């Protein structure tokens, strides 16, 4: 075998540069610096997560203070702490904070985390920066399923299980469709989104038709639910929301490294030992389940799953090992901030969180997209 050093046609500079590439790394201070910088850059990602977490605590406290009865933020924390310790000092405050306002905030935190993580997972698995449970029709499917369950049972939330099962079953229709489309040879990310939008319109139309048979009380509830609201969530709804969302976030975190590989393309992913097709199906089913459970309690909240992952990427990059937990806390923060804005902006009237998210999320997204020097995706 001919050695490159004996090749008479290669210039000395080229041969030397190859030797330089293969120089012992231990003696290379530049690379050591690179590694140190790499490890250091991770700290900012942890800091971002902690900042979001602290912001959630403060915004949640502030949101609880907003209402017909004025309560200070310190009284809010004190009331919650006293309730947890079983030392209820003021029954009125305890009822307002613990029974009326806290479930709404907790629902916002859970829904924000779940929808944001669902958006991040969908964008990676479908290789589509526009994918989220709303744009792909998953939320609309869940919405239709829940509406059918509600109108069929005759009373809103008469059976939580029925509504969730209905929402999940119908959310699987767009999921299945996306899986089928993704297997088509000439399918593109745009095709999948267009199909999702088509399904969304069909499901929304059916939901509207179903409202004809709903009584006025149901109709009002369904309408409020279609625009996305946190105020109908009660304590008894939170355990299932929390359990499913937590499971979804933890599973997403567990597979976050594989999501990174999947985002490089199916062929690259297969070459790195990942069954891309199977993983995509399981991810979409997971997203369908989490979105269905959230949507069945909060209704259609559209912008969180799309905006939260992109804004988070601007701060900490696209590595899913950090993006998933960061999205969870940022999505929570975003949703309860939107809810807080909705409560105060036209006080004493309340603008539902889904409407606020559309008003606030859209411009923020455009501002960050157009104002940032850093590209969020390279498609």
């Amino acid at each position, binding site marked *: 075998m001919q050695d490159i050093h004996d090749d008479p046609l290669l210039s000395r500079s080229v041969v030397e540069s190859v030797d330089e590439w293969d120089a012992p790394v231990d003696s290379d201070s530049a690379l050591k610096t*690179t590694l140190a910088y790499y490890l250091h850059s991770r700290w900012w990602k942890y800091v971002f997560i902690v900042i979001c977490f602290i912001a959630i605590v403060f915004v949640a406290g502030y949101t609880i203070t907003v209402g017909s009865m004025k309560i200070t933020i310190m009284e809010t924390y004190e009331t919650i702490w006293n309730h947890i310790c079983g030392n209820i000092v003021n029954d009125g405050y305890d009822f307002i904070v613990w029974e009326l306002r806290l479930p709404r905030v907790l629902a916002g935190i859970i829904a924000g985390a779940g929808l944001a993580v669902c958006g991040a997972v969908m964008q990676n698995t479908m290789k589509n920066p526009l994918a989220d449970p709303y744009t792909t029709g998953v939320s609309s499917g869940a919405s239709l399923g829940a509406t059918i369950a509600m109108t069929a049972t005759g009373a809103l939330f008469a059976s939580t299980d029925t509504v969730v099962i209905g929402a999940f079953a119908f959310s699987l229709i767009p999921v299945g469709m996306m899986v089928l489309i993704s297997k088509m040879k000439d399918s593109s990310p745009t095709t999948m989104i267009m199909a999702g939008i088509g399904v969304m319109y069909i499901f929304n139309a059916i939901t509207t038709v179903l409202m004809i048979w709903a009584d006025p009380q149901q109709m009002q509830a369904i309408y409020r639910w279609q625009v996305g609201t946190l105020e109908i969530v009660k304590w008894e709804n939170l355990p299932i929301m929390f359990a499913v969302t937590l499971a979804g976030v933890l599973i997403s975190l567990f597979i976050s490294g594989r999501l990174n590989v999947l985002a490089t393309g199916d062929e*690259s992913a297969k070459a790195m030992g990942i069954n891309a097709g199977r993983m995509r199906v399981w991810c979409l089913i997971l997203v369908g389940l989490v979105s269905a459970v959230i949507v069945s309690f909060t209704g259609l909240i559209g912008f969180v799953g799309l905006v939260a992952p992109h804004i988070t990427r601007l701060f900490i990059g696209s590595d899913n090992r950090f993006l998933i937990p960061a999205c969870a806390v940022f999505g929570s923060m975003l949703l309860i901030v939107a809810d807080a804005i909705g409560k105060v902006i036209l006080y004493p009237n309340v603008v539902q969180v889904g409407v606020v998210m559309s008003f606030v999320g859209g411009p923020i997204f455009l501002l960050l997209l157009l104002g940032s020097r850093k*590209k969020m995706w390279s498609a």
Partner: protein
Amino acid sequence: MRLSVENLEYSYGSAKVLCGINFRVDRPGLTCIIGPNGVGKSTLVKCLDGIYKPSAGRITIGGRDISGIRPRELARLVAFVPVVSGDMFSMTVFDTVMMGRRPHQKLGNASPLDREIVRRTLNMMGIRDLAMRGSDELSAGQHQRMVIARGLAQTPRFLLLDEPTANLDARHQIQVAMTLKDLASRSGMSVIMISHDLNIAARFADTIIMMAPPGVVYASGPPEEVITESSIRDVYGVGCSIVDAGGRPHVILLDPLRFRETR
């Protein structure tokens, strides 16, 4: 470790693109697959990595049929570097190259050895100064070298590359080809790459597999045996002159008009 391809066939629907391919790679070195467009080179390489399942025939590594090898284990044996890597979201070059270590990692945690290997491959591909850059901030050539580095980081026994020099300038074409050859000769890795540059293949390959329509192996062997005026004329339909360049053939293609005159 031997890679053996026996009577391999592959079809896209009713269109057969590989028709009874047979060859072996049984010692470390650089193997170049050459041939005209649409002859099935990329399809063949994707079959070798288990990305495509052959319609007929079999591929074995170390005597084991690759269809029976689990994807993760196969990824430790064979790495594939695509001609275009469609990264949707930009990650740092370091993290992107680190992905190549996934088949070796338990629970996806990078060990000091993984970091060391990534550092070495970055060094080898001449992109160490770009390690902290986003992959969307790279030029096409730098991106190409990053993707090759990711394949190298898999530390496979067989490294498959689909036109690795496609986006590179003349200097980097030679550097990458030399590095791959050098790596093959020193690490015991078998490198199989597709190339459209006949002179790169002739200069650096230990073995050349020349494919011809309709998806068959026209010739295989050392460059001086495979790259001849007659083989280029038969397979590419182009006339050429072959000159000796330091013991290796060097192809000078003739323009079609002159080719017609010489026939």
